[in-house]
Every structure is written in structure tokens, then in C-alpha cells.
């Protein structure tokens, strides 16, 4: 398994470990609190704002730990350069991720039009964010394994 594949698998695991429990916690909290409309909007705004740094910090910590463990176990130095193939794979994966996000965004607009509930829209947007992140990582793993 190449360094890039390992990196992406670690990102995937981190994303599952951090995002999924956070989403479950937020959805349970929302159901328990029974908020009125202005507080409901604040709640979802805060939920998204907390998720972003949480993902960034967890990604940085896990990447550092992975780099140290990888160096200890395999003896390889962390001096992988990024070349044209890596850039192309990153571009194609980001494109797939955007497609997924656009689909989710349209579904969230349909949800708010049909149900008139901002919570439905925010729930779909948060789930879409996580799913599009998974799409990005899985696309990278696929392109590194199968070629582009």
C-alpha cells in the first residue's frame, strides 16, 4: 500500500471517528431541546461552526501521529513530494466531492420548500458535508488504486 493510500484511509477513519459521533450527538441534542425558530437557527449555525475546527484539528493531530508511527514502523522519512499525478487525482476527487455537495444542497433546498423546516435543511446540509468529504477521500483511494 502506498503512502498516499495509507494517508487517505487514515483520513477516512478519522472522519468516521469524529464526524459520525458528532452528528449523532447533535441530532439527539436537537430532538431533546425542542427549540423555537430563532434559537433553532442559532443551534444549527453553532453546530456547523463547531464541526469545522473539530475536523481540522482532529485531521492535524491524526496526521502527525500517523507520520510519526509510519516513520517508526516502516523507517520511511516523511518527504513525499506532490507531483502532477497527485494534483490530477486531487482535482478529480474534489470535482466528485463538489458534485455530491451540489446534489445535497439541491435536496436541502427542496426539503425547506416542501417542509418549511430550517432544521431539515441544516440536517441535510451537515450530512451532505460529511458525505462529500467521504466522496473526496474514497475518490482519491479509487484513483490511486485503479489509475486515472
Amino acid at each position, binding site marked *: 500500500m*502506498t*503512502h*498516499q493510500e495509507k494517508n487517505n484511509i487514515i483520513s477516512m477513519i478519522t472522519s468516521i471517528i469524529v464526524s459520525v459521533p458528532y452528528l449523532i450527538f447533535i441530532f439527539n441534542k436537537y430532538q431533546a431541546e425542542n427549540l423555537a425558530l430563532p434559537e433553532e437557527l442559532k443551534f444549527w449555525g453553532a453546530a456547523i461552526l463547531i464541526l469545522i475546527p473539530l475536523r481540522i484539528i482532529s485531521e492535524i493531530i491524526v496526521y502527525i501521529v500517523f507520520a510519526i508511527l509510519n516513520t517508526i514502523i516502516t523507517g520511511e522519512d516523511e518527504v*513525499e*513530494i506532490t*507531483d*502532477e*499525478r*497527485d494534483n490530477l487525482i486531487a482535482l478529480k476527487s474534489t470535482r466528485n466531492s463538489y458534485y455530491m455537495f451540489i446534489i445535497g444542497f439541491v435536496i436541502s433546498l427542496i426539503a425547506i420548500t416542501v417542509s418549511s423546516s430550517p432544521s431539515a435543511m441544516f440536517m441535510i446540509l451537515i450530512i451532505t458535508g460529511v458525505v462529500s468529504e467521504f466522496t473526496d477521500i474514497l475518490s482519491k483511494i479509487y484513483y*490511486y488504486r*485503479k*489509475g*486515472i
Partner: protein
Amino acid sequence: MSKDFIKNNVKKLRFDNGQMTQEALAKEVGVTRQTIIAIENGNYSPSLELAFRIALIFESNIDEVFSYSPNDNSK
């Protein structure tokens, strides 16, 4: 996909050039070893610039390193 169309002799040329390793070739042309592996396995078609750089390392013309054969796709 493009990998069905573009064939290459990189592996053969490496061995003909003093059994050059993938790592050494990768360093010479400024890419990762994984990219050289992907090119040799036909999983990645390099940019024109990278193709020329590889040909330059082997002191060959680009058509001696890479060949385009659209008919192979119909097999």
C-alpha cells in the same frame, strides 16, 4: 480510458540503461516512485512535459518511449 491507448517502454528502457531503479528515474524526472509505477503499469498517462523529460533521461525520442495505439481499445 487513456491508459488503453498509450503504451510505453519505460520498464524496458530502465533495464537497458544500467538497470535504473524506479526510484532513480522518479528522482531524475521530479515525480514520485508511485507515478513511475503507474506509468509502467499503464494506469497513468503522463503529461507531455513529463513524457519528454522521461525520453530525455533515456536519450531517446518520445515515440521510442511512448506510443499511441487507438486500435488496442477495441480488443
